[in-house]
C-alpha cells in the first residue's frame, strides 16, 4: 500500500505510533475471521470473503470519501441520503427512457455538486460541517421522496448486466463488477492521499488548520475539495447500490452515514483529523462486514446484534485513540 508514504525501511522504533490503530484493526479482523472459521465449517470458503466485498462494495466507496472528510477534521452526514438520491435519480431517469450513459453521467454529477455546495457553505460562511451536512442530508432525502414515494425498479440492460456479471475463478468463486470498481476507488484515493499535494494538504489541515493557513496552504480550496470528493464517492456508491438492488428506493441507506463513520473510525482514522489511512478504512468496512456475516451464520441471533457489536467496537476504538493521543502528547 502506498500509504506508508514516509517510511523508508523497517524502523520498528517508530512504526507503532502511526500504524498501531490500523494494526489493531487488522488483528481484530483476523481474530474475528478465526472465530468464524473455528465455529462454522463453511466460513473458510473463499466465497464468504468475496461476499463480504460484494455486499459492502458501495459502503467501502462511500467510506473512502468519508475518510477524506474526517482526515481534515470534518464530518459528512449527507452520504447516506446522497447514495439514496443517486440511486433514485438513476432509476427514475432510466424509467423515463434515457439511455444508460447519460443517466450515469447525470447521476455522478449530482453528488459532487451537492458536496461542492456544502463545502463552500462550510468554508465561506464558517459553519460547522455537522450542521451543513445535516441540512444536505435532509435535502437529499427529501429529493428522493419528491421523485417518488415508492421504489422504482430498474430493467435497463446495462444495469442488469452489471448486477449479474460475475468475475470468477475456475472453482466457482466470484466477485461482482462493483467490487472491482470499489478497489479502483480505494487505490486512486490511497494514491491521492499519499502522493499529491491535495492529499498532503488534507493531512496538514487535519493536523492544525491554523498552521496550515500560515504555511500558505490552500485551506479553503482543500476543504471544499474533500466534501466534493465525498459527494462523488457517495454518487459512485449510489450507482453501485443500484447495481446491487436493481432499484431506487426513497428509504434505502437510511442511517448509512453512521455505519460509514463507524467503519472509518474503526479503521483507525482519528475523528479530530490528521491521522489515518484508506487501507485502514478498507479494514474497518471488512470488520463490519465480517460481524454481519458471523451473525448471519449463527442464525439464532437477531440482526440487531450487529448494531450492538458495532457500537461496542466503536466505543472501544475511540477510547483507544484517545489513549494513544494522550500518550502522543
Amino acid at each position, binding site marked *: 500500500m502506498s500509504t506508508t508514504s514516509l517510511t523508508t525501511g523497517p524502523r520498528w522504533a517508530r512504526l507503532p505510533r502511526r500504524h498501531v490503530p490500523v494494526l489493531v484493526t487488522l488483528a481484530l479482523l483476523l481474530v474475528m475471521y478465526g472465530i468464524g472459521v473455528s465455529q462454522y465449517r463453511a466460513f473458510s470458503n473463499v466465497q464468504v470473503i468475496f461476499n463480504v466485498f460484494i455486499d459492502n462494495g458501495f459502503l467501502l466507496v462511500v467510506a473512502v470519501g468519508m475518510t477524506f472528510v474526517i482526515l481534515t477534521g470534518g464530518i459528512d452526514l449527507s452520504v447516506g441520503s446522497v447514495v439514496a438520491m443517486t440511486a433514485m435519480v438513476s432509476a427514475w431517469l432510466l424509467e423515463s427512457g434515457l439511455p444508460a450513459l447519460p443517466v450515469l453521467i447525470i447521476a455522478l454529477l449530482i453528488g459532487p455538486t451537492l458536496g461542492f455546495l456544502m463545502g463552500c457553505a462550510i468554508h465561506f460562511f464558517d459553519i460547522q460541517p455537522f450542521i451543513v451536512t445535516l441540512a444536505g442530508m435532509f435535502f437529499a432525502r427529501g429529493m428522493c421522496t419528491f421523485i417518488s414515494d415508492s421504489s422504482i425498479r430498474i430493467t435497463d440492460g446495462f444495469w442488469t448486466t452489471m448486477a449479474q456479471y460475475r468475475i470468477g475463478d475456475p472453482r466457482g468463486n466470484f466477485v461482482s463488477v462493483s467490487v472491482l470498481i470499489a478497489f479502483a476507488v480505494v487505490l486512486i484515493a490511497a494514491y491521492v492521499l499519499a502522493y499529491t499535494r491535495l492529499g498532503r494538504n488534507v493531512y496538514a489541515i487535519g493536523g492544525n488548520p491554523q498552521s496550515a493557513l500560515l*504555511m500558505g496552504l490552500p485551506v479553503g480550496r482543500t476543504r471544499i475539495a474533500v466534501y466534493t470528493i465525498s459527494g462523488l464517492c457517495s454518487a459512485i456508491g449510489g450507482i453501485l447500490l443500484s447495481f446491487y438492488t436493481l432499484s431506487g428506493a426513497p428509504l434505502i441507506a437510511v442511517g448509512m452515514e453512521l455505519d460509514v463513520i463507524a467503519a472509518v473510525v474503526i479503521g483507525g482514522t482519528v475523528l479530530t483529523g490528521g491521522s489515518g489511512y484508506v487501507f485502514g478504512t478498507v479494514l474497518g468496512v471488512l470488520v463490519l462486514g465480517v460481524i454481519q456475516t458471523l451473525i448471519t451464520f449463527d442464525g439464532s441471533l437477531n440482526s440487531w446484534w450487529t448494531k450492538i457489536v458495532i457500537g461496542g467496537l466503536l466505543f472501544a476504538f475511540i477510547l483507544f485513540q484517545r489513549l494513544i493521543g494522550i500518550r502522543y502528547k
Partner: protein
Amino acid sequence: MTDSRPVLTMTGISKSFPGVRALHNVDFRLFPGEVHALMGENGAGKSTLIKVLTGVYGIDEGTITLGDEQVAFSGPMQASAAGVSTVYQEVNLCPNLSVAENIFIGREPRLLGAVRWGEVRRRARQLLTRLDLDIDVTAPVASYSLAVQQMVAIARAIDVQARVLILDEPTSSLDATEVAQLFRVMRQLRDEGIAILFVTHFLDQVYGIADRITVLRNGTLVGEYPIAELPQLALVEKMIGKELDVLERLEEQPRRELAAVEGGTPFVAVSELGRKGAVAPFSLTIHAGEVVGLAGLLGSGRTEAARLFFGADRADRGEVTVNGKPTSLRNPVQAIEYGIGFCSENRRAEGIIPDLSVRENMILAMQAARGWLRPIPRRRQDELVEQYIKALSIRPANPDVPVRNLSGGNQQKVLLARWLITEPRLLILDEPTRGIDIGAKAEIQKLVVQLSDGGMAVLFISAELEEVLRLSHKVAVMRDREMVAQLDNDDTVDAERVMQTIASGSTRKEASQ
C-alpha cells in the same frame, strides 16, 4: 558587515487602528549579515511593525524598500516568496506530519504531479545539516522538543532563498540549552549573510546575540544603536522612557518598616515554586499585614508568578505552605478557601462582567465562596455593597448601574470591592492602577496601605516603580521570568537601584528568608 547597503529599509511608517495610533513615523533599517533586535515594552509597536512589513496589515504612510525595489506585500506568503520569512512565537507546523514534509509542504518537488518523497527527504536532510541539526526527518514533528520544532520552522523559512528572517519571540518557551541551540543556528545564518530581525523580551538574549538594537516606545522610534553603545541600563531607560534623574527626583515617602510586619509564621511561604515556560523557581514569604511588591518589566514573569500563588496555573515544582501547613495550590477555588484573592491585570477580559450591575459584580466572589446553594440575603448584599461603594468612593454611587457604564478607575474599584467583601487574608493585585486616572490611582494606593495596616497581606504588582516603592515593605524584582532579587525596602533602595537590578540582575540580595 554593516558597511554594506541595507537589504531592508522602512521609512516613515505610520499605522493607526480605530482609536489607537500603533506606529507613528517609524524608520527601520536591516543590513545583510546582522542580527537586529527590535525592543520595546508590550504595546510599543513591535508586532505591528512586523505585521506591516510582512503585509498582514497595510500601511497608512511610509515606504518599504527591499533591496532596490519598493515593496508592499499582500500577505506573509507573498513576503516569503520575496525572501522575507517569519517564524512566529507559536510554532506553526503541522504536528502530525513528518519533519521533512513540514519543511516542504506546499512546494514539494514533484514528478508528473506525484510528490517525490525521496527528494523531499534528501533536501530536508541537506537543509537541516546546514543548520547543524541531525534528526530523523521522517519522524513526526510533534515527537521533537519545541526548540527543534522552532528550527524546523526556520528551515522552512530559509528554504525559499530568504534574505530577511524575522524571528518573533522565538525563545519565549525555550529553556536555556534550547536557546543556546537556537542562537548557534542564528549565528550560522547571519554568517551566511541573512539579515535577522529578532524580537524578544529577554534582555540577556539581546546582548548575547544582537549586533544592533532598535528601540520603540508607544509606537514611535526611540533610536537605533549599535549594541556596544547601549548598555543594559540605558536600554531599559529607553524602553520605559524615563531618565534616571527624573525618577530620583520623585517625592520620598516615609519608608514602610519591614521589621514591623516580619516575624512569626508567614501567611504564605513558597519555596522553589516554578512552572516550566512561565517562571523559573523562586522563593518568597508574605506575612500578615505585609505588602510585597513585584517589580519588573512587562512580560518579565510577574503575572505568571502571581498566578501560581492563586492556583490559576499549577506549579510544576516547589512547595507552598499556608499558615505553616504544607499544601499545594491546585486551583483558584482552593486558593479562595485559604483566603487568597486575585485582582486580575486584565480587568476587561478576566474580571469585570460588564453587563451585570455593580452589586452583582461585587457579590460574585463571595457568592462563589459560599456556594451557589446558599444565596446571600438581599439585606446583607445591600449592606456590603453600600459599605464598599462608600469606602472606595465608587461613582456613580448606584449599585444597580451596569458596570460597563463606569469609568476604568471605578471598574477597578468594583473589582477590588469584589475581593474585599470576601475578606481575604492575602490579596494579589496585578497592575491595579494601570490605565486609570491619577485620582483613582491615589485612592487605590491609599486603600492598599489601609488594608495592610489592618492585617491583610498584599502582593502588589506594578510596572511603576515609584508606586511599588511607596507601598511595599519588600520588593521582589522579576527579570526574564526569574526572580533576580528581593530587596528590603529601606533607605538604600530607590528607583535607580531597582532599575539597575532589572537591567543587570546583578545586585542579588537575599532578604528575609
